[in-house]
């Protein structure tokens, strides 16, 4: 088991390096840079000399390989530098938003898991009964509905409901408060986006749980468990679910990693200042330093999530553990 974990950790290194190379060079392949955008972005004439000075200041006149090593070195020493657009420290800019995005992602994951596993299980056990149909409609609706649209509905619903009950409409707070400062204010802002994204997420995971369990229930060892005269509950919980959880873990993990950087529109709807928003801004501004830091951050989150999934796999399946 330790050997397995060590192997997985070592495997993360080339993956991260590969991601860094791709991110760095792809970004540079986009025509135009931050200086041109800043000075001539609106189609005005800009002095080529001024652009040159700007490029010198930001260091983007240097040969690519030097810029690349600067980037890698900065990443390794956790010094991400300053934003080329705003000049603020990137670590600070990202740090604040990372906290928010991470919290929403974790809350959405918890919501999804708590909903998906029981629902998927019931749906599989009661295959082709009305219970199964209800669950399937619930999960197909979740996949079909974009979470930003569900977000709009949630906000509207909140406004109307509070108007009806208290007389004054209430909206979730717009200002972000860290959870350790004021848990109530924090949750009353973030519960809603977590619900909106968690629903779609749970729909995907419910379907995966259902199909994985259905497959496992046809396995010979489940028949063996029945032939042994075990309780149906024990057969499902002990013999079937543990086997069915493998693909479900993957789906849940990948969705989590996706949420960390992919909540662009939902963040707009709830007016959250998260990573998704920063992402869009930095790309539009050709802000190399911020974009590459963000992409690297998301890449690292993906790689770490995959690592956790691998460990869970080993924990669930002894064949991997002892391989």
């Amino acid at each position, binding site marked *: 088991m330790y050997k397995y974990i060590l192997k997985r950790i070592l495997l993360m290194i080339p993956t991260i390096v590969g991601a860094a190379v791709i991110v760095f060079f792809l970004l540079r392949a986009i025509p135009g840079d931050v200086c041109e955008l800043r000075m001539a972005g609106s189609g005005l004439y800009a002095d080529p000399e001024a652009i040159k000075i700007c490029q010198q200041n930001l260091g983007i006149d240097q040969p690519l390989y030097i810029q690349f090593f600067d980037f890698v070195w900065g990443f390794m020493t956790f010094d991400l530098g300053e934003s080329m657009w705003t000049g603020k420290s990137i670590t600070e800019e990202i740090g604040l938003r990372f906290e928010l995005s991470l919290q929403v992602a974790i809350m959405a994951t918890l919501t999804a898991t708590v909903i998906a596993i029981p629902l998927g299980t019931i749906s599989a056990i009661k295959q082709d009964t009305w219970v199964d149909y209800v669950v399937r409609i619930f999960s197909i609706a979740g996949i079909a509905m974009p979470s930003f649209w569900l977000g709009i509905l949630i906000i509207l619903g909140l406004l109307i409901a509070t108007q009806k009950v208290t007389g004054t409409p209430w909206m979730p707070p717009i200002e972000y408060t860290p959870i350790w400062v004021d848990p109530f204010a924090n949750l009353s802002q973030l519960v809603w986006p977590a619900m909106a994204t968690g629903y779609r997420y749970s729909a995907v995971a419910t379907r995966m749980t259902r199909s994985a369990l259905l497959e496992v229930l046809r396995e*010979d*060892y489940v028949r*063996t468990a029945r032939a*042994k005269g075990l309780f149906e509950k024990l057969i499902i919980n002990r013999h079937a679910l543990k086997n069915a959880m493998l693909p479900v873990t993957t789906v849940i993990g990948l969705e989590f990693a996706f949420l960390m950087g992919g909540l662009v529109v939902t963040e707009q709807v709830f007016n959250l200042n998260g990573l998704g928003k920063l992402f869009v801004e930095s790309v539009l501004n050709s802000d190399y330093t911020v974009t590459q830091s963000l992409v690297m951050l998301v890449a690292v989150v993906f790689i770490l999530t995959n690592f956790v999934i691998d460990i869970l796999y080993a924990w669930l399946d002894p*064949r991997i553990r002892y391989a």
Partner: protein
Amino acid sequence: MPNLLEVRDLKTQFFTSSGTVRAVDGISYDVEEGETVALVGESGCGKSVSALSILRLIPNPPGRIVGGSVRFMGQNLLDLNDEGIRHVRGRQISMVFQEPMTSLNPVLTIGLQLTEMMELHLGLNNEEATRKAAEYLDMVGIADSKRRLKQYPHHLSGGMRQRVMIAMALCCEPRLIIADEPTTALDVTIQAQILEVMKDLSQRLGVALIIITHNLGVVARYADRVNVMYAGKIIERGNARDIYKNPRHPYTLGLLHSVPRMDLPRKEKLDPIDGQPPDLTKLPEGCAFRVRCRYEVEKCGVEVPHLESIGTGHLSACWQKNDLHNAAAGVSS
């Protein structure tokens, strides 16, 4: 001796999109206490389904037991509710399946898979159950049983896993074990070992055994009584000696001719049964074996032959059963 199990007119059908499959079509047989009974037939003749039907393990849908009774110690298992049949499964009647590679749960330890049954059926605590589990592993010939209990199925070879399955089948001291092709998936060398273990332990512990197989060699050596099945029906029954020395159904005769024999000259050709087993969704009129039979007479296409006695405990379902006597002599030469 009283009958432990009485199967009467059991019918199991599968309702599929291409029609109703009459997998088991009215079979009756008995198993006495401590006796070994074989169900023989080629693939798809309904022998496994008939075994699974006894413990009501037929997946429903698409399968359903549509008629008959299965009396075990006087009680009809088909009348029991889910909780009732659960108490019989593993405790009174246990099963050994064909595929040892897939019949054990890959993510649970051998120990857990053995002890959970004993804790449930015998009310043992974990410590007692673990001790007994180790004893049973010793009994089925697994060395180093204490360590094996902590291992997972993928640590064991196919033969070892089948031994674990046998230990599982024995551990709650059942009255009857149903072994569904227990050695088909194993190496020939391992097959004999597994069968010896089963025969030996079932005799020592006084457990009755139903062996389901297509291997006539297994039958000859291990079975007291033999039921030959074809297209969902039992077409001949007798003790192993009757079946070998005096087969009275053309299908049994054909099976015996299809087995390579060491004691015949090498230039002697095998004489297989022509054709394919019939489609169980549309069985022909009359005798189901008719189209492949060399002894067909007009009556075969009109009326289904029933099992009728031709001697003590020897029955055959063939209109020509009395004339087959001479043809059969060739086999035992």
